[in-house]
Structure formats: structure tokens, C-alpha cells
């Protein structure tokens, strides 16, 4: 069975919510914090229903809606979300409301919304979708688990159209806490310069990116999602290479069949060294693309890479702003490989191919 990406909704620190654009102009963010470029929510969502939506719910529901609209699917057969941190803002609001003295004069709204499956539940509520509804919350495997579940659903014959999304929000506090934990790159002036630094630390991002996975051929399809594999705490480069084979082998592909590679470099020199080792090991002469200078580092950012891969395949075009290593290639691209790892712990590979 082939699994296709039928439609996408991408709300990120770039102007990606408009599917007609493909990084035509890139947004540079000051410093190491990449905030969402929000779409006009009021044009996408019913204002009456927005009153109980915090930022993450708005970005989640809106991206899902953009994705479903583009896919021309009104009712998905499953809604599956990956969100490592869930509804951070609502969690903070509720923590603040009851406080150390545990005031009884508090309302339940923030508590209700702080539940990790709020975005999935809200999408179901809006669509009146009674189908399967799951939320994965596992660090750098949150989005991967959601995609894997979507693939399982299609393979089980439990539906034809599965809505899968990766959603994580940044708040002032979560950004500051990242800074305290020493994870941010202090000297970064412009987010787009991320790859020109050689130091520890990352830039922080956020996003809400949805895909409609389908088992049906359709002229709207972006690409085939032809492989996904996760590795937890690999002990060596050999183990990473073995994982790569898990993605290529089932499709009878070899390294030489890969036309472009998207890697998850985030600017942290120690974490990025793993990507260099990986590229060193595979030794193939293809374009290498980066994306975290565009969306920042966060747990479900691999969804941005999947968007990039699907777009590259569909448009047969590599946006200049994503190129780390340039090899002239703007046609005949059949297979794009994604390799991402989150904090050297959660490693994942995706393979995205042309539909035919």
C-alpha cells in the first residue's frame, strides 16, 4: 500500500500558512526566538468558537482546517496529534491561578485546556468527528509517533484519510526557562544566521503543522510518504546507519537513489556534529537542506521538515534559503530523505518520494 500526503496546513515562524507560497520570502527573527507568523485567524475560525481558545488551540485548529480544506476532506477517519509539551500557556495560567496558597477562587477553564489532548479534542468537537483521536507526548518522538499511528491506521484498513499534526507552542516563560537551562544561543542576532555560528546552544521555535495522509491516488497529492523509522539513544553511528537501511530497504532503494537530504541542524555544535558524521558516512553528492534556521528548534519541528520535503517533491524546486550544501538540482528529484534528532536522543528518518 502507498501512503500519500494529500494536503498540508503549516503555521510556523515563516509565512507558510499560505500553501501557494514556498518560502518566496523568508522572515528573519531578531535573536534566538522564532515566533509564529500567525494567519488571519478570524478568516479561518468561527469567532464565536474562538473565545475559549488559547494560542496553541487556535494554531492547532487553524492548521488542521487549512489542511482539510486543501485536501477537500470534510471528515477525517482519525485525528492524531503529536505535542511534546501540550498546552503550556494554559498550564502556566492555571499554575498561577491556584498558586502556592491554593486559592479556591479559581475557574476551571485553564485547567481544562491544559490537558495535553485539548487540540485533538477541539478539532473533533468542531468537526463533530467521532472517530479515533490520539495524542502523543513523547519529546522528539511526539510527531513521529503520530505519523506512525496514521500509517498503521491506513494499513489496518481503518479509514482512508487520516489527519496528523505536530503542535508545540512557546511562551515567554518556556522561552526563559530554556535560556536558564543553557539551551539557547546567546550571541545569535539574526535567526537566519544560525548555521554561521560555531558554539553551543540553539534558537527556539514553535509551530503547528498538519498533514492529511491518504491511501488514495489523487492529483492533489504532494508526495508519497514512503518511509519512517525512529531510533532511541543510538549507541553509535553504525546504529544510525542501520536505522537508515530500515527506511530504504522496504522500498528496495539504495543510497544512490536519494536525490536530496534534509537535516535537522539546530546550531548547537555538539548536536550538529552528529549530522556531519552521518553525511561523512553516507558519502553521496546531493543537495543538503536545513530548516531549523527558519522554524527554530522544538520537539515537533520535524513536521516542518516533512512539509519541506513534500513541497520540494511536488514543486521540484529547492528554495535557496534552505540550502546548506548546493548541488544544482531542480528537476528529476524522486526521493528526499529527512534525518532529524532531538537532543541526540530521539532520532528519526523519513523518506518522501514522488507519487508515481
Amino acid at each position, binding site marked *: 500500500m502507498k501512503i500519500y500526503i494529500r494536503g498540508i496546513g503549516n503555521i510556523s515562524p515563516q509565512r507558510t500558512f499560505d500553501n501557494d507560497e514556498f518560502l518566496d520570502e523568508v522572515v528573519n527573527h531578531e535573536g534566538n526566538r522564532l515566533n509564529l507568523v500567525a494567519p488571519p485567524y478570524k478568516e479561518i475560525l468561527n469567532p464565536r468558537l474562538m473565545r475559549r481558545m488559547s494560542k496553541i488551540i487556535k494554531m492547532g485548529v487553524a492548521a488542521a482546517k487549512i489542511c482539510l480544506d486543501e485536501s477537500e476532506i470534510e471528515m477525517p477517519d482519525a485525528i492524531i496529534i503529536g505535542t511534546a509539551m*501540550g498546552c503550556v500557556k494554559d498550564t502556566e495560567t492555571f499554575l498561577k491561578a491556584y498558586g502556592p496558597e*491554593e486559592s479556591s477562587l479559581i475557574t476551571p477553564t485553564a485547567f481544562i485546556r491544559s490537558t495535553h489532548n485539548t487540540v485533538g479534542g477541539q478539532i473533533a468537537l468542531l*468537526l463533530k468527528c467521532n472517530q*479515533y483521536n*490520539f495524542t502523543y507526548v*513523547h*519529546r522528539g*518522538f511526539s510527531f513521529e509517533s503520530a505519523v506512525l499511528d496514521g500509517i498503521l491506521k491506513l*494499513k*489496518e484498513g481503518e479509514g482512508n484519510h487520516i489527519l496528523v499534526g505536530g503542535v508545540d507552542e512557546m511562551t515567554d516563560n518556556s522561552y526563559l526557562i530554556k535560556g536558564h537551562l543553557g539551551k539557547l544561543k546567546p550571541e545569535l542576532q539574526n535567526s537566519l544566521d544560525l548555521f554561521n555560528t560555531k558554539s553551543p546552544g540553539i534558537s527556539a521555535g514553535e509551530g503547528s503543522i498538519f498533514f492529511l495522509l491518504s491511501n488514495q491516488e489523487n492529483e492533489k497529492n504532494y508526495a508519497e510518504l514512503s518511509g519512517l523509522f525512529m531510533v532511541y539513544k543510538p549507541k553509535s553511528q553504525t546504529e544510525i546507519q542501520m536505522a537508515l537501511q530500515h527506511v530504504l530497504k522496504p522500498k528496495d532503494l539504495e543510497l544512490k537513489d536519494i536525490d536530496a537530504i534534509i537535516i535537522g541542524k539546530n546550531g548547537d555544535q555538539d548536536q550538529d556534529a552528529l549530522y556531519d558524521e552521518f553525511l561523512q558516512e553516507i558519502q553521496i553528492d546531493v543537495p543538503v537542506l536545513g530548516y531549523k534556521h527558519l522554524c527554530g528548534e522544538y520537539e515537533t519541528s520535524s513536521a516542518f521538515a516533512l512539509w519541506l520535503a513534500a513541497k520540494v517533491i511536488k514543486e521540484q524546486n529547492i528554495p535557496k534559503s534552505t540550502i546548506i550544501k548546493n548541488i544544482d538540482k531542480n528537476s528529476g528529484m524522486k526521493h528526499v530523505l529527512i534525518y532529524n534528532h532531538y537532543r541526540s536522543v530521539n532520532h528519526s528518518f523519513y523518506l518522501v518520494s514522488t507519487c508515481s
Partner: protein
Amino acid sequence: MSQDIWVTGMGTISSIGLNVEESYASLLKGETGIAPMRYLETRFKEEYPVGEVKLSNDELKHIIQPTTPIISRTILLGAIAAKEAVKSAGIHDPNEFRTGFISATSVGGMDISENVYQEYLTNGTIDDLPYMGIHDCGSSTEIIADLLGINDFVSTISTACSSSANSIMFGARLIKQGILERVIVGGTDALTRFTLNGFNSLKIVDKEQCQPFDANRRGLNLGEGAGFIVLESDALVQKTGKKPLCKLGGYGNTNDAFHQTASSPTGDGAANAMRKAMKIANVNPQDISYINVHGTGTPNNDLSEGNALMQIFGDQVPVCSSTKAFTGHTLGAAGGIEAVFSVLALQNQAVFPNMYLDTPISEHNFIPNQEFRHHEINHVLSNSLGFGGNCSALLFSKN
């Protein structure tokens, strides 16, 4: 080779026992774990009884001997139950076959991080910064997986009060699709001030012992704990010649899509989840011998869930009971703990009492089972329902 999924081990910890044996003894004797709060430091200490695990964090640490000092109660409880499950399944080398660990939690490391976070939000200072690193749900899974030595596959699910039923479901599906050969699945949640204040703001916490399915029920008691089971593929069970405890025959997840927190009056979501589980297991409603219902004791849940049962079973509702009067509502761990209870029901051919039920709900045409008794059991349904309209049912069957 069949597609059967076998349960080969289990482990649990809750207010009614530190392991499976103790828990069964409490279920048999009808001893509730609901008691005045001892360990959670909160303004509500005198006000609300809870289903607390009767050990301090230091005592829990003594049992599990964690390798890191940065640890939450959620992790400690989860590690103890998961270790028991692995041991009872006779797994010596987790890397011998492709093995996964899928946990579920609704609070993650919140039992500690809520204090650190609140201090930060009010004073802008963090003394215990490392604890923010285990605030998220996934960190608890990784620390437990590392303690168990499992690294082939890890994942975490959080769908409020149905979380661990869903991790069991995901594990079973991964085995069916040949991605894993065996998997440890379930969930863990510790008591926190966060959830206590949250449910208090919803005005659904009972100040006395909760009374699920009683006409005069007032609300739920919060509890804590963990429950994990080991699932193995048919091929693996054939290969190792292991004698399984029972079969996980079916599972279903649906969304009520009615309200962010409340269940629909008709209980459509819960009914559809049970129907789905029976369909996958290829079992008819009349074959169900026992239902471990979600039965939290809130006015809304019990009425709606009972209506869901009547929707499917008509006037033939099988023997059923809520065990929440024993354990309290353990939130993200409830599905895992009650999966263990369901396996115990099959193993011992016994049904557990729905304690403290005095007056049945007049809208229902059935009365939950009120005493421990032996009974022929072939198929058990276990329901877990959560915020966000999340409804799950698991179906366990005799070998």
C-alpha cells in the same frame, strides 16, 4: 501463525497495594485505599480523602533504586509497576526480541515541577532548575525505559483519563503490524496539587469516600498509581513456549465530540468504543461476562456511561463494577491499573465489588455487582473515558 496478542505479564501499584498480589487481596477483602492524605502537601489535606500510595518518595526510591536523583513520583510509581510486569513476564534480556515501552501519563513530572514552576512564575527564580527537565510527559517514559534497559521503541500517550488504555491499544497494534514482537504498555500518574485544584475548580471532588453508580454520588476521589501489562505476539509466545495470562482480543477508541469535559447524555462515545472492541475481538455482546466500567463517581460520568451500557446490552447488561471506590480515580494510570484488574478477573474467574453503592441510579435498568464473587468469565471489557471526549474500551479474553 495467528494475529493474537497475548498478555504475558503485569504489574501495578496503587493505594490498595504495592504489587499485583496485594491489590488482589484488597479487591477480595473489599478494602478501600481511600484515606486521609498523608504525603501530598496541600491546603486541602484535611478536606479531601484520596487514594494515595502509602509510601513516601524516599521509600519508593528505596524500592526502585533510581540511577538519577532528579526524579518524580510519577516516574517512581511507573518504574515499580513496569518492573513488576517485566519480571512477571519472565523477561530477562529486553534486547533479545524487538521490545517496546509505551507509557501514558497526564501529569508527567508535575508533582515536583508545579512547585518549581510556581516559584518561577511568582518570584522569577528557580532553585531546582533540573526538575524542569523532567516536567514533560515523555521524560518519565524515557527514565523508566532506561531503568528497564529497553531501547528498541519508546513512546508516550496523553489523552487525559483514557491515556493508558490507549497506550495498551497502540502497543497491540504495533505488534499486529509486525513492528514490535513484544511491548510493555500502561501508564502512571502521581497525585499533584495541580490536578487536585483542577478537579476542585470543576466542583467534582467528593469530600467523603466516593460512591460510583450511587444515585446520591457527589463526585470522585483522586488517586495515584501505575499499571503495566506485557503484550507479546503469537509467534513469540509459540517460540518461547511461554504460558500467557490471557489474550487482548479487542480495543476501540472513539470521540464523543460533545463537550470538552462532559460526556454526552446518551454515552454514544463510550458505546461506540465498546462496539469497536467487540468487533475487533469478534465477540458478541451476550458473550461479555464482566465489565470494569470507568465509573468515576461524578454525576455526569456514571449516568452517561450507564446509558451507554443500556444502549448496547439493552436489559441484559452484564455483571459490571467500578473499582474506583477502591483506588480513587488515578487519571492517566486508570486504564493500566484496570487492565491489570481485568486480567485478574479472568485469571481468578472472579468479579469485584462496586463498593459503597446504596441507592442505584433510577435511570438505569441494572445494578452494578456489589460483592466479590467467583463467576465464569470468558470476556472482560474495560472502559476508560477522558476529557476531550476521549473514549476507549479494551477487551480481554480467556486463552
